[in-house]
C-alpha cells in the first residue's frame, strides 16, 4: 500500500541518532500499518543546532496547529459543554440540564429513525458502489485502446457538486411530472408516472442511491485501478499456465490481492455515507420545508440545530457528540482492520 519510495538516508552509522523508542508509551501515535518505515531521525539532542531546529519545527507547524485547536478542538470541547445546557437560540447558555439532551435524543423516535435511515442507506449504497467501482475497474483493466477516455468519463462526475446533481435528478430524471425522463420511459412501457420524491413506497431511495452512485463511483474506481495495477502481472501468467483463468483467476488471485484496497474502499464508503447531507437536502427540501422521512443523522442534527422553529444548539451539540462517537468507532475499527490487512 505504501507508495512512497524508500528513504535513502535511513539511519546511517555516520551520525548520532536519537533513539526512537521513548520511555513513555506512545499513546498519541495511532495504529499504523505494521512495517511502515520509521520517520527519518536527524535531530541531535543537546546541541544548539538541535534547539534551533526545534524552533523551526514550530515555525512550520504552528499555523496548522493553531487552526486545529481553534476550529476543531475548542469547538468540540465547547460543544460538549453546550450539550449539557438548555441552549435554545444561544451559544452562551445558563441553564444546566445534565444529560437531559442526550436522554431527549435517545427517546426521540426521529433520532432513532435517522440512525435507521443511515443503516438502510449504507446497506444499499456501500455494497452497490463497491461492486460497481470494482466492475468498472475490471472492465477497464488492460484494454488496449481508449482506456484514458473511458476512465475520464467515469471519473468526471466526481467534479460535479451534489447540488447540481440533485438538480438534474430532481428536476429532469426523476421529476414527478409526466415530462420527467424516467416517467417518460415508464409511460412508454404503459405504466403510470411515479411521484418519486413524494414519500410513497420509498421511491426516493432510488433517486438518492442512483445519484450518489453516479457521483462517487469513479472515485473508488480510481482506487481499484491503482490496486489492480499494483498486482504483478506475472502472477496471472503463472496462473493461466496452471489452467486458472477468468473467474477462477479473479476469485483466487485478483480479489485476495486487492484486499487492502477493498477494505479501504468499504471503510471510506461507509464513513462517507454517514456524512450524507447535500443530496438529501437538495432533492427533498421544498418551499414547505424538509419532509418527515429520509432524514439521515446529519440532516437530523441540521434541522434540530438550525431548522425552522427549532434552533436548539444544546440538543444539536449532544447529537454532534453522539455522531462523533459513532464515527470515531468507525475510524478505530478502520485503522485496526487496515493494519491487519497490511500485516497479512
Amino acid at each position, binding site marked *: 500500500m505504501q507508495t512512497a519510495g524508500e528513504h535513502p538516508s535511513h539511519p546511517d552509522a555516520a551520525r548520532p541518532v536519537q533513539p526512537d523508542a521513548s520511555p513513555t508509551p506512545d499513546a498519541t501515535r495511532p495504529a499504523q500499518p505494521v512495517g511502515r518505515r520509521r520517520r527519518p531521525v536527524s535531530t541531535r539532542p543537546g546541541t544548539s543546532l538541535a534547539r534551533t531546529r526545534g524552533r523551526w*519545527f514550530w515555525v512550520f*507547524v504552528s499555523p496548522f496547529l493553531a487552526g486545529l485547536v481553534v476550529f476543531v478542538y475548542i469547538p468540540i470541547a465547547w460543544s460538549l459543554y453546550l450539550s449539557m445546557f438548555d441552549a435554545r437560540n444561544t451559544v452562551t447558555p445558563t441553564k444546566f440540564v445534565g444529560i437531559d439532551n442526550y436522554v431527549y435524543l435517545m427517546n426521540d423516535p426521529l433520532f432513532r429513525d435517522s440512525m435507521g435511515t443511515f443503516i438502510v442507506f449504507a446497506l444499499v449504497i456501500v455494497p452497490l458502489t463497491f461492486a460497481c467501482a470494482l466492475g468498472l475497474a475490471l472492465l477497464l483493466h488492460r484494454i488496449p485502446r481508449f482506456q484514458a477516455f473511458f476512465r475520464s468519463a467515469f471519473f468526471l462526475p466526481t467534479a460535479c*457538486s451534489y447540488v447540481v446533481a440533485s438538480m438534474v435528478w430532481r*428536476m429532469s430524471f426523476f421529476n414527478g411530472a409526466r415530462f420527467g425522463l424516467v416517467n*417518460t420511459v415508464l409511460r412508454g412501457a404503459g405504466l403510470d408516472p411515479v411521484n418519486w420524491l413524494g414519500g410513497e413506497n420509498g421511491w426516493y431511495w432510488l433517486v438518492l442511491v442512483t445519484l450518489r452512485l453516479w457521483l462517487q463511483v469513479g472515485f473508488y474506481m480510481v482506487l481499484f485501478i491503482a490496486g489492480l495495477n499494483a498486482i504483478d502481472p506475472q502472477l496471472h501468467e503463472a496462473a493461466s499456465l496452471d489452467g486458472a483463468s477468468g473467474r477462477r483467476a479473479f476469485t483466487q488471485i485478483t480479489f485476495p490481492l486487492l484486499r487492502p484496497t477493498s477494505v479501504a474502499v468499504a471503510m471510506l464508503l461507509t464513513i462517507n455515507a454517514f456524512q450524507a447531507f447535500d443530496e438529501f437536502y437538495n432533492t427533498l427540501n421544498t418551499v414547505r420545508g424538509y419532509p418527515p422521512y429520509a432524514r439521515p443523522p446529519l440532516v437530523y442534527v441540521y434541522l434540530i*440545530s438550525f431548522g425552522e422553529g427549532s434552533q436548539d444548539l444544546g440538543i444539536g451539540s449532544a447529537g454532534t457528540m453522539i455522531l462523533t462517537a459513532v464515527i470515531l468507532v*468507525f475510524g478505530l475499527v478502520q485503522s485496526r482492520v487496515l493494519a491487519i490487512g497490511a500485516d497479512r
Partner: protein
Amino acid sequence: MKPGRRTLALRYAALTLLAVAFLLPFYVIARNAFSTQAWITAPAWHWLPDAVGVQTLTKVLTDPGIGVLAALGTSAVVSTIQTLGTVVIAMMAGYGMARWSTRAARVVTGLTVFTLMVPTTVTFVPMFVMVSSLGWISTFRGLIVPGLFSAFAAYLFRTAFLGFPADLEDAAAIDGANQWSTFWRIVVPNSLGMVAAVGTITFIGTWNAFLWPLLIAQDPAMRTVQVALSQLMTSQGIRYPEMFTGALIAVAPALVVFGVLQRWLVQGVTQSGLK
C-alpha cells in the same frame, strides 16, 4: 493473459453504453440550459434543445434577482484563497511532521490523525458555534478560515515528504541554508506534483462545498454558487432554463480544473485512499 477478441468487443460495447449513461447528466444540464420552459415541460421528452443561444445565459448573469454572478464571485474568492491557504499551511505542517521526530512532532501527528478520523462535516454544529461567536457569520472570514486547516492535506504531505530524499536538504544545510529557506527553495520546488494533487482535490471540494456555506452565508449577498443554486431550486417562479443555466455555469470551473489537472487528481485520490 490477454482478453480474447470477442470478449474485448463485448467489453467495448459495455464501456460505451456506460460512458453514455455517465455523461448523460452533463448533457441534460446543457439541454435544459439551451431550451425553453415549454420545451422542457412538454409531455414528450425532447433530446435536442430548442433555444441554442446566449439569451438565457445573459439573463441569468445579469438578473440580480437570480444572483448567480455575485455568487460566482464569492465562490471564486473563497475557493481560490482556501485552496492556496490549505496547500501552504498543510505543506508546512506535513514537512514538520515528516522531518522532526521529537515528542511534540508525535503529538501533532497524533492530533492530525485524530482529526482525520472525525470529518469536519460531522462537527459542523461546534464549528458554527465558534464562528458565530467570533462574529464571522456572513463574512469571507467565516467562509474561508475554518476550512484552511485540512488534516487530510497535511497528512498527504507528510506521507509525501517522508519519501523525499533528505540528502538534498542536508547538502543545503551544509551550505548554510536554514530549514526555512531549504524548505522553500529545495523541498517545495521538487514536490510540485503533490502540490497539484492536493490543490486540485481542495479546489473541487471547496468549489462544490454546500453545508458550511449554507450555514455561514446567511446574508444572500454572501452566498456561494452552490447555495444560490440550491435556493433557486426551492424558490417559486424560477424557470427551468434559468436554473440549469446556473448549474452549467456552476459546474464549468470544476470541469475545467478536472480536465486540465486530471492526472494530478488521480494521483491525489490514489494516495488519499491508500494513506
